[in-house]
């Protein structure tokens, strides 16, 4: 596959250097094209897209209240449908806080109604815009300002893919920035399908995860290779694994991120255990519902 050349997102946006979330949007818009309307709740992207008078996304953006992404997107789509404008894609673009936490209710509502939108969660595994507080997407063992050492996050990351899967929607996929063609293909597929589509993007964040800004792609890749983040799709109920993890040593992934500096041994073990269990479950699902 060739990555579309056209750049819709503009340069000089306000993300930090090495921001995975900025790269994710750039790739997503390459796949979706200019006929896209984006809904952005409170999150880093509120800032990345520029302050008053700016719009670095390069497509129409509606900034909205934190908990409302999926519902506002559904409303936009409803009017487009009434106007007969079937060729416009509506995309909700929220962080993990806006998706796993405060926006989960609206997300569930739109998924259950099968509203014809693409809902994207760019997941940087904490509330970054407010300065790195834990979310329910923060992995076990990670340090944030609300889970300071020695009481680091003590519960596993919520499995959102499977929560959305429980709504029986046409398309669900995970992606991350180190695999741009995979990511773009998934957006193209999502665009081609009617109904509720959900894409979960792991987005490394240098200041939030505490790693040098040139390591974003490496970390994104390690997340997949270690099995921390599984690349798979659920299309019309059918599971497909896109990349089998190599199960590289997890420590390699943890040790280059300052947020795991104070992770106690038991929690490292718990993480390893969780990776194994999720993978085993996914294998069973792929086998029986593939």
């Amino acid at each position, binding site marked *: 596959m060739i990555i579309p050349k056209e750049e819709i997102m503009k340069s000089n946006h*306000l*993300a*930090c*250097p090495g921001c995975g979330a900025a790269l994710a949007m750039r790739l997503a818009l390459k796949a979706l094209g200019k006929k896209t309307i984006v809904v952005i709740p409170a999150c880093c992207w509120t*800032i990345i897209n520029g*302050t008053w008078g700016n719009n670095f996304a390069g497509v129409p953006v509606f900034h909205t209240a934190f908990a409302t992404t999926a519902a506002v997107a559904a409303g936009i789509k409803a009017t487009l449908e009434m106007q007969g404008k079937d060729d416009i894609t509506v995309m909700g673009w929220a962080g993990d806080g806006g998706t796993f936490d405060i926006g989960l209710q609206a997300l569930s509502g739109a998924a259950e109604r099968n509203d014809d939108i693409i809902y994207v969660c760019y997941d940087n595994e904490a509330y970054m815009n407010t300065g790195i507080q834990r979310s329910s997407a923060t992995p076990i063992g990670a340090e944030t300002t609300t889970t300071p050492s020695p009481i680091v996050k003590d519960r596993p990351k919520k499995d959102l893919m499977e929560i959305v899967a429980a709504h029986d929607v046409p398309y669900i996929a995970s992606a991350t920035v180190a695999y741009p063609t995979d990511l773009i293909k998934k957006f193209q597929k999502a665009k081609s399908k009617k109904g509720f589509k959900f894409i979960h993007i792991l987005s490394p964040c*240098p*200041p939030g995860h505490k790693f*040098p*800004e040139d390591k974003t792609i490496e970390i994104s890749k390690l997340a997949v290779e270690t099995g921390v983040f599984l690349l798979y799709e659920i299309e019309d109920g059918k599971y497909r694994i896109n990349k089998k993890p190599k199960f590289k040593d997890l420590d390699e992934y943890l040790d280059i991120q300052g947020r795991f500096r104070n992770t106690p041994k038991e929690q490292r073990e718990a993480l390893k255990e969780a990776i194994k269990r999720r993978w085993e479950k996914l294998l069973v699902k792929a086998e029986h519902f593939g």
Partner: protein
Amino acid sequence: MKEIGLHGRGGQGVVMAGELLANIYFKEGYEVQFMPSYGAERRGSPSNAYVRIDNKRILYRYSIKAPDEIIVLNVTLLPNLLLKEGGIALLNSADTSNLKKSDKVKFFVVDANRIALECKLGTPAIPLVNTALLGAYCKVRGDFSFDTLKKVYEEKIGKRAYLNIEAAEKAYESVREV
């Protein structure tokens, strides 16, 4: 009353420098007010903090536009900074060849990047120059004692205070007027 502006980029420790400076003057018996300015800050974007110092309670609750003195952690910001006439500008800089001198402002320079790295503060990409610059400021202004600075660093910084004190000492010794 005296108003001091601290200007740098995210990651250089501007906010911490302001807070340390406020605490130093407070320890010297002044009334102080520390006002960080908050915006859409990201790593690398401009970051400002302000300190007001007076002999009586400080009641101003609005931002400072043109301080009496500025401490500039990153000289690329200099063209956008305001300063009162007759003011003092302390710059983190090794090279003064590009500096446009003015008879309305007194310039002082210190190579805080080098000093910070010598003292293992920050990374080569972003040296943590805040504590060194306050050492230089102490010399330039002379209205608080270096001893007070040391005490405040010890109280506020903890384990790595000695490195910051060392950086401040080096900057104190090497700051010069341009």
